């Protein structure tokens, strides 16, 4: 199902079977990307591409299309434009994808999107005109055949690759795997998973999806502080932090602030360097580091696992 | 019904040589004896003769028969006779069934006695199958209140009231205005006699007032009507706002019509010298006409349109000529033009009228609706009328007209429109009241006991209104003179348990006999008034809960007939088996006529008689095909002529639906047909049969397994 053409660095690396690192940037309710551009300096040279979130958690944040373009231009890092189905109908999604093409974006992550009810604009109409599988299918049609869903031709079709998300920790797991099968059928070219802490979980997942022959980047979530870890653990089901890790972070919390950050970094490196080293031994195609606001850790992580 | 098994007696008639000359009657008798529950079978030379009648009565008594089948001529002649015979022998008359082996068999298959005899056996078997399932019925008889309500005190209402009162009936005449007279009060002179309208009216009212039997209520309107023929309860509202109740046996609608006001057309209400004919009459009466030098009349204003009022209002041409002549009588020299599309002056007097007008130099100019006249105001207050004269292909301008008179149609009143849902009687597409049958029942509504006359029914002349009023009075007098009405017990019956209260029966019934009512425990069920029900069966077939049965034409009885219609197997060359559903009033009569006329056709058909083609349930069609029948023909009255108003339209709608299913289930749609056959179309009946037999022969036998038995399916 992979096209002959390669349009992005990410895809080139994946095809070459080199272990790939990707990062994540999350602009919030702002029109100013200065801070993020600054933070992304840590990522340059260490990740091959960076995801730009689209209304994560159903929060009304800066358009990921605009952000992807600006960040790609300003940082020189290739972006993965995340596109959710929550807010736009088939026409708008298509229009934005043409826009992405026109703006030189080369990777798209097709997502369903969190329901408005869980975000900060809970009464917004949930659109979901397409789901992530249908969106993936549409994107492949645009790129490979140069037409829209109804077969109408596109002048100068866009050139990008489409990936999908997965939950390696889903319970029950089987429907998640079958869903991935569907998305692969629809044309997905790579997978980035949600956060995983347990390497065994990652291995199990990789075994299940092995038959689909699709590059999988396992997601990790370095925890900047105990506060962040606790918040995610308590409030985001599916982002459960292993208790031992929480404990370790908790102990750091009470330390002197002069050494606290350094200690946090140590805890994370202690957990994730071995994780990534193990991961490199698996069929995983790479690692997706979701270090939002914690970009400074990335260079050490990548270096230590070379 | 004594005991559990019915005891059927079969009497096969020779009818001299009419039947016996073709059909082997003894063989049919012997066959009848082998049928289930037949305990007695015999033959007669003429069953309708006194010895034949006696033999039936004797056999009933001697053999304890509780069902009787007579196989002879068409039920449309002697069914009443044989039913009476059964009654005289102590048997309920609805336990009798007739099998027609003359009109439907011996007379039309004279050249093939063998097959005619086989068919006669089948017909007898079908009749026995139904007879076994017949149930005794009671006919309802109700008293008729010998009083009548006439709604509307115009010339029609007054005439009807006077006629009825003359016959000795109590009459209530109600009129919504303060004074009697209706449209007549507004008219000047009447054509063609030129009698003064007010004189005619005075005479009519004089006759009315002379009667003690007539109670006249003016400034009174009908608020509500409940009940049915013989027992109407009418709520009227008087001028003081108080309500009163009247109990009457019949109702006559004579609410008249009003004159259409053509707002904005030809400058009406825009220029003050554009008026209607009615307004012209008022000017004559009041003497305010003035001295116009030139008058133009325009015909067909707001009438005979493509949309809206499509009808011709019948009287406007005469009215225009009448008024034109009146003007000429007043002022010889006044120029009068009549711009017309067609001059509808029919009959002797009215034809002469036209010539008289031309003699008086009234000018007639023909126009076409594509190029209507134009009325243009002049600065001096007069009007110019432009008209494209099609006779000479030229546009003419008639300048300096003092008056333009528009001939507009009569239309239904607001009061008439409001009366329709109160009486539950329909309005036609032209909004005038709609009669039961255009030809056969032009004065009656489909609802028994209510009649219509005058312009409420449609535009007509005064003499026509008067005639119709007399007719309505006669019609109303019939039930009142008889003092009772009896209804045939072939009415619909609701199973209240099964009824889901959908209201479709109420919607579909042309007689208003079905009504959705709320029972005390809260459930909505259909209640059928057996006096008003005519037994067409529309409700039974549309009922989505299968909760309605038709007495004497029950589903199980008809299915029994379907199941026993053909005896299998037939050896030798393939002979298609065709089942025909025929309605009692038209197509069955047409089949009888084919018989009477001795038109021969192949014996491949068996007829099932229903009261209306609307009774034919799609389930009957499926059962027929599933029992191996090769072709099914549904026949009924021509559209517009259904005895039950619209049952045939339901039959057609259902036929189209079933037809669309046939291919999907793997059957050839040509096997199902529909034909409209009137009572006078015997030849057409025969030719439809011949065609169908030929076509079914070509199609070949139905590939469904035959599952007929002697006793019928199921």
């Amino acid at each position: 199902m992979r096209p002959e053409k390669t349009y992005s660095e990410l895809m080139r690396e994946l095809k070459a079977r080199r272990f790939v690192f990707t990062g994540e940037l999350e602009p919030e309710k702002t029109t100013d990307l200065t801070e993020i551009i600054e933070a992304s300096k840590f990522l340059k040279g260490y990740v091959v591409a960076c995801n730009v979130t689209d209304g994560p958690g159903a929060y009304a944040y800066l358009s990921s299309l605009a952000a992807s373009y600006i960040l790609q231009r300003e940082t020189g890092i290739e972006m993965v434009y995340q596109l959710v189905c929550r807010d736009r109908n088939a026409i708008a999604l298509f229009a934005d994808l043409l826009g992405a093409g026109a703006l030189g974006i080369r990777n798209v992550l097709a997502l369903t999107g969190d329901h408005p009810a869980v975000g900060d604009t809970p009464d917004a109409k949930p659109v979901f005109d397409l789901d992530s599988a249908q969106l993936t299918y549409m994107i492949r049609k645009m790129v490979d055949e140069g037409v829209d869903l109804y077969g109408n031709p596109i002048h100068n079709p866009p050139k990008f690759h489409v990936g999908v998300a997965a939950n390696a920790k889903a319970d029950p797991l089987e429907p998640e795997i079958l869903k991935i099968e569907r998305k692969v059928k629809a044309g997905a070219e790579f997978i980035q998973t949600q956060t995983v802490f347990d390497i065994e979980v990652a291995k199990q997942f990789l075994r299940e999806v092995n038959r689909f022959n699709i590059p999988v980047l396992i997601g990790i979530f370095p925890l900047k502080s105990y506060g962040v870890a606790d918040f995610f653990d308590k409030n985001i089901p599916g982002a459960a932090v292993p208790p031992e890790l929480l404990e370790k972070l908790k102990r750091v919390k009470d330390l002197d602030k002069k050494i606290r950050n350094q200690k946090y970094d140590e805890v994370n490196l202690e957990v994730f360097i071995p994780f990534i080293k193990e991961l490199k031994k698996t069929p995983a195609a790479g690692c997706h580091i979701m270090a939002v606001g914690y970009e400074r850790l990335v260079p050490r992580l990548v270096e230590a696992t070379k | 019904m004594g005991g559990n098994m019915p005891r059927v007696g079969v009497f096969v008639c020779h009818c001299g040589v009419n039947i016996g000359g073709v059909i082997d009657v003894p063989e049919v008798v012997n066959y009848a004896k082998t049928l289930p529950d037949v305990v007695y079978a015999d033959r007669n030379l003429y069953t309708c003769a006194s010895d034949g009648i006696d033999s039936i009565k004797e056999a009933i008594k001697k053999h304890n028969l509780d069902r009787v089948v007579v196989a002879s001529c068409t039920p449309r002649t002697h069914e009443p006779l044989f039913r009476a015979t059964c009654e005289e022998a102590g048997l309920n008359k609805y336990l009798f069934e007739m099998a027609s082996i003359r009109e439907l068999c011996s007379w039309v298959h004279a050249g093939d006695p063998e097959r005619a005899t086989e068919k006669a056996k089948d017909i007898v078997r079908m009749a026995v199958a139904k007879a076994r399932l017949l149930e005794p019925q009671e006919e309802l008889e109700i008293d008729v209140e010998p009083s009548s309500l006439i709604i509307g005190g115009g010339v029609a209402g007054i005439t009807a009231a006077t006629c009825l009162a003359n016959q000795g009936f109590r009459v209530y005449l109600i009129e919504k205005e303060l004074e009697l007279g209706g449209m007549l009060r507004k008219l000047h002179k009447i054509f063609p006699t030129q009698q003064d309208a007010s004189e005619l009216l005075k005479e009519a009212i004089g006759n009315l007032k002379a009667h003690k039997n007539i109670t006249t209520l003016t400034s009174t309107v009908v608020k509500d009507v409940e009940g049915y023929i013989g027992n109407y309860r009418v709520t009227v509202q008087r001028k003081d706002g108080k309500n009163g109740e009247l109990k009457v046996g019949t109702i006559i609608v004579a609410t008249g019509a009003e004159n259409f006001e053509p707002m904005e057309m030809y400058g009406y209400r825009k220029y003050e010298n554009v008026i209607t004919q009615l307004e012209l009459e008022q000017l004559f009466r009041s003497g305010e006409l003035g001295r116009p030098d030139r008058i133009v009349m325009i015909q067909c204003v707001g009438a005979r349109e493509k949309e809206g009022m499509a009808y011709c209002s019948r009287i406007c041409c005469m009215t225009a000529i009448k008024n034109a002549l009146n003007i000429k009588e007043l002022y010889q020299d006044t120029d009068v033009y009549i711009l017309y599309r067609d001059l509808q002056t029919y009959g002797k007097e009215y034809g002469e009228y036209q010539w008289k007008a031309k003699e008086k130099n009234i000018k007639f100019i023909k126009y076409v609706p594509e190029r209507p006249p134009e009325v243009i105001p002049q600065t001096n207050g007069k009007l110019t009328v432009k008209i494209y004269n099609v006779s000479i292909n030229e546009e003419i301008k008639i300048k300096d007209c003092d008056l333009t008179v528009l001939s507009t149609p009569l239309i239904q009143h607001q009061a008439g429109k409001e009366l329709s849902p109160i009486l539950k009687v329909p309005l036609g597409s032209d909004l005038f009241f709609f009669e039961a049958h255009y030809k056969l029942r032009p004065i009656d509504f489909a609802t028994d006991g209510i009649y219509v006359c005058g312009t409420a029914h449609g535009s007509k002349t005064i003499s026509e209104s008067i005639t119709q009023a007399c007719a309505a009075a006669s019609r109303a007098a019939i039930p009142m003179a008889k003092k009772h009405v009896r209804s045939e017990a072939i009415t619909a019956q609701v199973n209240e348990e099964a009824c889901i209260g959908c209201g479709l029966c109420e919607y579909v019934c042309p007689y208003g006999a079905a009504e959705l009512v709320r029972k005390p425990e809260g459930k909505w069920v259909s209640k059928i008034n057996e006096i008003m029900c005519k037994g067409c069966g529309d409700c039974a077939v549309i009922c989505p809960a299968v909760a309605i049965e038709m007495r004497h034409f029950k589903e199980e009885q008809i299915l029994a007939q379907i199941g026993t219609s053909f005896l299998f197997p037939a050896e030798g060359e393939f002979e298609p088996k065709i089942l025909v559903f025929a309605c009692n009033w038209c197509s069955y009569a047409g089949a009888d006529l084919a018989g009477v006329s001795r038109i021969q056709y192949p014996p491949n058909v068996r007829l099932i008689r229903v009261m209306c083609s609307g009774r034919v349930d799609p389930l009957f069609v499926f059962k027929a095909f599933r029992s191996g029948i090769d072709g099914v023909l549904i026949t009924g009255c021509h559209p517009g002529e259904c005895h039950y108003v619209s049952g045939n339209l339901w039959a057609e709608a259902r036929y189209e639906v079933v037809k669309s299913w046939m291919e999907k289930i793997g059957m050839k749609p040509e096997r199902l047909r529909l034909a409209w056959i009137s009572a006078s179309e015997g030849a057409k009946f025969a030719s439809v049969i011949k065609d169908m037999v030929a076509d079914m022969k070509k199609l070949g036998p139905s590939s469904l397994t035959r599952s007929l038995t002697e006793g019928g399916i199921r």
Partner: protein
Amino acid sequence: MIIVKLKPFEEILSMLEGHQRILIVGCDGCSGIYEVGGLRQAEILKEQLELARELKKSEKISVKTVTVPRQCDNDIVAKKLRREVAEQEAILSLGCGVGVQTIAEVYEDKPVFPGLNTMFIGMENKSQGKLFERCQACDDCILAETGGICLIARCAKGLLNGPCGGQVNGKCEVGGYTRDCAWVLIWKRLKQRGRLDLFTKFRHFRVNRQHPPRELELPISVTKSQGGKS
């Protein structure tokens, strides 16, 4: 059935302000069956309205009640309510939104007010004591592929190719993880039947939709009757 609930009394009261002769029309269809708007509720509401207006506004108003087998049929509404409507000047309908509109259409010159809020098409579960939304009238039923579980009505996102990533332990992210993820239910059911092929089937973006407001012909055209009758 169509699931409805009574509007707050204060809202009904304020809608009817200024009207003296009110007709409350109940419905023996959906709203009556679920004991929201039948004749009984109409009569209770009548008492409440008359009392409230008397006590709060010192007005003596005339409230009449009547019910019909269902309000969603213009013929029934025209025939069964004619007399009562003529006597009153404002109508409060205890039918669903369809009923209110049918009455308004038939009786154009009288104001008609909705006494209920129409919620969803749902199922009654007596043992749980609740009504559940089960259908969204999508006109393209694929319950044959989903083991009889509707993915439009029961999946918060109406996904044709679910589940989404928001599912945790078979619970949906909408509603605080208290409601079942429809897609996990579908997976369980199809697994039971050995038909996971139906689960994995890729369902395309739906085309040839009829957009609201939608229409449908009656099974046998009931307008095709009674000759020239209007």
